[in-house]
């Protein structure tokens, strides 16, 4: 029942149209993206508010994942992907040619649709990013492991088996583990791409609770196909369609009084 409490909390009087500089986590300016000669995103403009949960919804293939991975430049790995426009995080354009991508990815954590723990121990999974930064101090690593596991409510379940293979965890536990793995780097922003689509209802519920708690510390962007989920966990929702940002407003209004007809068709299930 307490899920609906969060629903009410989401309205903190933030108005998307008049966000101050400090309230913006990601500022997307006229972002256009093409794969070869196929345009996947058209002139996207949006401001993602800090320490709130923002949901991206839209039909399959509309560009949600593509937009999400613009924010940590994971698209760089796609050979023929070209990005035009700007994305500002912490006041700097992350597509500036001097941007340090590895540094950016530590600030912007990402979790994928299917849990992808490395075939190592739970502990090694959690300290992977830290070790890459060159952190070797055992105490620091131990603390990071415990803190991040507590953040995702996994500590009690795994504290006695930290050195067992992460693959022995259940699917839901694995997904929480990879969220913890991202959190261990103390990012500012968390990108979640359909984090619950491979999970059972109970695990889904746990992760949803987790997301609503995470926003106390992090800015969360979540892609979801589940409209109820978007309504439950997010403060703001963006609706994408064929690479266009159709509508972006606070979740409550988007689901109760959508401005655009396409949005209404989609959320009422008449799309297609």
């Amino acid at each position, binding site marked *: 029942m307490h899920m609906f409490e969060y629903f009410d909390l989401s309205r903190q009087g933030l108005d998307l149209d008049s966000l101050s500089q400090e309230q913006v986590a990601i500022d997307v300016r006229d972002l256009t993206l093409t794969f070869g000669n196929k345009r996947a995103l058209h002139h996207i403009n949006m401001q993602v508010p800090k320490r709130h949960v923002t949901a991206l919804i839209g039909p399959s293939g509309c560009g949600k994942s593509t937009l999400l991975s613009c924010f940590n430049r994971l698209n760089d790995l796609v050979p023929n992907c070209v990005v035009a426009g700007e994305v500002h995080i912490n006041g700097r354009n992350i597509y500036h040619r001097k941007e340090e991508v590895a540094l950016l990815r530590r600030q912007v954590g990402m979790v994928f649709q299917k849990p992808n723990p490395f075939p190592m121990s739970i502990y090694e999974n959690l300290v992977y990013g830290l070790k*890459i930064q060159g952190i070797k101090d055992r105490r620091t690593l131990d603390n990071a492991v415990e803190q991040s596991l507590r953040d995702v409510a996994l500590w009690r379940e795994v504290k006695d088996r930290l050195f067992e293979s992460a693959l022995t965890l259940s699917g839901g536990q694995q997904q929480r583990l990879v969220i913890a793995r991202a959190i261990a780097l103390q990012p500012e922003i968390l990108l979640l791409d359909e984090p619950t689509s491979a999970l059972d209802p109970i695990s889904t519920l746990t992760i949803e609770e987790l997301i609503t708690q995470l926003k106390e510390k992090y800015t969360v962007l979540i892609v979801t196909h589940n409209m109820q989920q978007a309504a439950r966990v997010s403060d703001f929702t963006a609706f994408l369609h064929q690479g266009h940002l159709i509508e972006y407003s606070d979740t409550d209004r988007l689901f109760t009084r959508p401005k655009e007809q396409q949005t209404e068709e989609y959320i009422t299930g008449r799309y297609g």
Partner: protein
Amino acid sequence: MFKRRFFARQKDGLPIVGGAALVAIILLLLCGMVGIMLVKGMQHFWPNPLYQVSYVDEQDQPQQMFATLLSRDFITTRGQKRWLFNQAKLYQFSDQQHLLRQEQIITLLALPDLIDVQLRSGNRLFARLNGLTFAGKAVDINRLPNVLQDVSVEVAAISAIEQGRLAAIHQLLAEYDRRGVEVDAPARVKLEDEFAALMAELKSRRSQMAQFELQLLFDSGQSYALPLWEVEKYQQINQQTAVQRFATFLSNIWEFVSDTPKRANSAGGVFPALFGTVVMVLLMTLIVTPLGVMAAIYLNEYAPENSLTSLIRIGVNNLAGVPSIVYGVFGLGFFVYQVGGNIDKLFFSEHLPAPTFGAPGIFWASLTMAMLTLPVVIVATEEGLRRVPNSLRQGSYALGATQFETLWRTVIPMASPGIMTGVILAIARGAGEVAPLLLVGAVKFAPTLPLDGEFPYLHLDRQFMHLGVLIYDGAFHSNSIGHGSSMMFASCLLLLLVVMTLNIIAVMVRSRLRRQYQAMAGHW
């Protein structure tokens, strides 16, 4: 309805039965091959009884010989069936084979006093044992084992003095000569005296030792006194119990794997070849693994997906089909003459014109074999890399890892079972190849090992012996029909064992890696 199902089943069954039969045939062939090696090879070690053979020769003259019977139905090259005997005589460099028709044989007597003597010179002889004497006086023959033991200890002691103190004095005296030290300088005189004293001592010890003699009777009827110190070991096979024969069998096997070859590789052991094979294969593995893995990583992870890359890939695949002798010629022409020659010019010019690396040697052999097995490792590693799920790469990048860090920490460990598969295939191929080795460093007989206690321990420039080369040599250049070829089968068996052992080790490493990175088992 029932009928239709029956036929449907049969239709299904046919390919299965056919496939199973094929597999069975293949298995049978494999077992047959190993079986022949096993039987023929083990024959080499099993002590055969010694016979006094009385027969009539082609001129109808009665003859006598001491021999072992190798086969009762040996088929000659002309298709005739013969009894095959093996005869060992004093001062004959190798055993001799005799083929007799059954009608020629009069008697075959396994006399209990027949003895098989192994000499320190490497020679071997069959004779009747007539007694043991010391300075012409008979000694209780039952003391022979103890006396031989004592004499052997004495021989070892004498040669220790010769190679130790005596050699040292000799060297010092030579040094004095070079420096022009006076002949009557006190230090020199003292040394000369010690030298003379030692020589005298050794002489008396030697002559004392030489008083022990084995009284033998040859098949010609001639008696002979053999100084006991010449004897390395002896066997009275006809007196041995089954248990003793088995012990002899085991000690023969041990001699085979631990001793050096004798009499032009037709007797003794094959230890240098075994050692050379293993060292060569290990060196090859050390070279080919990093090279192959790096090449595969470049092709799979870094190279852009264009036609040039796929051309390279096709090239690599075809490289696996190049006949091995071509690699041998390449190794000789490029590694030995070009690279080795230039290394000599640069670093070993003081030894020229005698080549150091400019001649065939174990390093060039390993390098050539590494080239030969490179494609296998590249292909298997690429396969392993391709099987690492992309989601893991993305996960690593998303945590701020660079491409290199992702490779090093995630992709390569997960591809390691694939890499090991490549290594296994490379070992199997590398241990069995002979043709290229003949050109780049393997020889019929090498006086030294490629790895010993002498600085720098691993002698990469040395030539080495190889089991495959030994077999090849034994198969084509052996003039003896029986013994040499049974040694060849034994060598084959050993080579199979070596390849299998190396493979089993690699397979065990791989299954450990697999267990560690079990993710491959379709977790994603």
